[in-house]
């Protein structure tokens, strides 16, 4: 019974594909999985919109939407209908072709990223040998889509927003890659299923997740910072800073195309937190050995929703970073620490079993963190803001 629950989707697919003649079966299998992903994640997007608005409300001492349906559960449906029925205005001076293509390219690139994520025991759509490289290759093309959106609307604010967004995504893509390179170095393979398999062992009931090692934890923190910046969320949402940039690169979009941008942003959040769960939190492996009977895909999606809640939590708390602070933080704090993290991971590997590797690695990382933090704050580009009032 447990086995079937764990493999419920795989068995379902085989059963459904079984109806087709043998020749068509592989193609139909892939098509079925693709349809499943394209149907499931936008539904999860609707649920997350509701969770976000209720969560943010609760954090600000208010209730959040509760008018549309019981507990406001139909609010995403209302938003969807509103954005579908709204008129899709394209500015006259806009570059029509590029303006139309930008949201499509963004959503397509983000959907491609889901192909390599292992969502459960042998539930990976495409088990690629260079899966992580494929994921980052797809992630890299979203920057171009953002630029196309900003430039083609021929609007100063959206161009400014697009420039800020692209600059931010590029400067935080380097730490993102570097922190996942540490995981690749320790597992010895770029394939995500192998990474999850490497983390799927238990000693005394505790799992071998990478986050429970010093370099893994530091890597995870850097990864989390980089993902928040990659998806333009919470403290790094300067590109669509409502206060000064109207709505950043998607100012001139309305109706369905604006909903596509919104969907693209949330899908990017899902896929990048799914990747984070796979790299550092052991993908679909259970947190404790005695919990092994729970189906594997439940663990993957609970970790995913946990990181979504952390995104929302950060959005409810942190103020927006200025562009120069954002850039300083990326190049002068996160990147050096991720490079150092690579060194520490190597050290961790060659010091062999035993407690001294814990001490050495922790010491190096904490020292570096304290020193760079203090140095950064002293020189003023990392710490709290200092204002120069007019004399």
């Amino acid at each position: 019974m447990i086995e079937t629950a764990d493999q419920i989707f795989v068995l379902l697919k085989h059963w459904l594909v079984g109806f087709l003649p043998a020749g068509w079966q592989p193609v139909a299998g892939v098509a079925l999985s693709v349809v499943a992903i394209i149907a499931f994640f936008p539904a999860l997007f609707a649920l997350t919109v509701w969770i976000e608005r209720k969560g943010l409300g609760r954090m600000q001492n208010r209730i959040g939407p509760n008018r549309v349906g019981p507990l406001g559960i139909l609010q995403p449906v209302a938003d969807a209908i509103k954005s579908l029925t709204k008129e899709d205005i394209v500015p006259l001076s806009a570059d029509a072709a590029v303006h139309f293509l930008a949201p499509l390219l963004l959503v397509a690139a983000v959907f491609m990223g889901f192909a390599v994520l292992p969502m459960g025991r042998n539930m990976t759509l495409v088990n690629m040998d260079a899966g992580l490289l494929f994921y980052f290759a797809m992630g890299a093309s979203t920057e171009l889509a953002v630029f196309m959106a900003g430039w083609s609307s021929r609007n100063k604010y959206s161009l400014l927003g697009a420039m800020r967004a692209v600059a931010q995504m590029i400067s935080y893509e380097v730490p993102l890659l570097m922190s996942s390179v540490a995981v690749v170095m320790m597992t010895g393979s770029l394939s995500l299923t192998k990474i999850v398999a490497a983390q799927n062992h238990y000693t005394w009931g505790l799992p071998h997740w990478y986050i429970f090692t010093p370099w893994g934890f530091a890597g995870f923190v850097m990864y989390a910072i980089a993902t928040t910046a990659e998806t333009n969320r919470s403290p790094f949402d300067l590109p669509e800073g409502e206060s000064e940039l109207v709505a950043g690169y998607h100012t001139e979009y309305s109706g369905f195309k604006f909903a596509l941008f919104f969907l693209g942003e949330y899908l990017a959040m899902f896929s990048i937190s799914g990747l984070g769960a796979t790299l550092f939190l052991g993908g679909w492996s259970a947190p404790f050995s005695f919990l092994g009977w729970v189906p594997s895909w439940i663990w993957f999606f609970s970790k995913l929703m946990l990181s979504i809640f952390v995104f929302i939590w950060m959005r409810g708390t942190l103020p927006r970073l200025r562009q120069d602070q954002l850039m300083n933080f990326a190049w002068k704090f996160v990147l050096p620490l991720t490079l150092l993290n690579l060194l520490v991971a190597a050290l961790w590997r060659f010091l062999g079993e035993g407690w001294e590797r814990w001490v050495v690695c922790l010491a190096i990382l904490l020292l570096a963190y304290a020193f760079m933090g203090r140095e950064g704050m002293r020189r003023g580009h990392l710490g709290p803001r200092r204002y120069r009032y007019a004399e």
Partner: protein
Amino acid sequence: MLGEGILKGLAETARNFAGSFVSAERLTTVQYPEQRIAPMEATRDFPFLVYDGADWEAGLRCVACQICEKECPPQCIYIEKSKDKKPDFTGKPQFYPARFDIDISVCMSCQICVEVCPFEAIKMDTEFELSTEDRFGGLLLNRKKLAKPNEHYHKIHPAEAAEVDARLAGEKVKADAKAKAAAEAAAAKAAAHVAAPAGTEAAPGGNAAGNPTAKPVEGESRA
């Protein structure tokens, strides 16, 4: 240490989030149409005309002196004086507004009309759900819609209403006393006039008996 502030902030929002399910103080939302906050004493929305007694037309305190019409910043009050007069609360015949319109879509609830009104005739109401489908006529309240009994005034601004009533009662007493004194003086003069045989026909103050003495006195006492 870098990042300390972030953790403190996150802890604070977590406390808010968890607290909102538990303590009332962390969830301050009032579900407007179902639950309401009791309006405070000094709430003011749109003006209304106060009237004493049962019949609103006769009991209107307003004497159409049009001060509020002149003073109103957005000029949203329109008054047409009546031709005849009707007795006010002290019995003295006064004009009354044949037509008194306030366009509440223009009114900005600044309460200047209440401050300048010498006759305590216009006060600020706490009623704000006045939306209508018709944007022009619907929001133009005429005399009948504006008039509300003194009891309503007592209900919404109890302290202020009591103080106003006390003052009016005082004035009424003073006016009555003056009227009584004037009546006796007139009676005494009439008696003296009859007693004095023929002379002093053209007594000074000949016109005093003709018109009621209350008007000038009332003006000063009001200042």
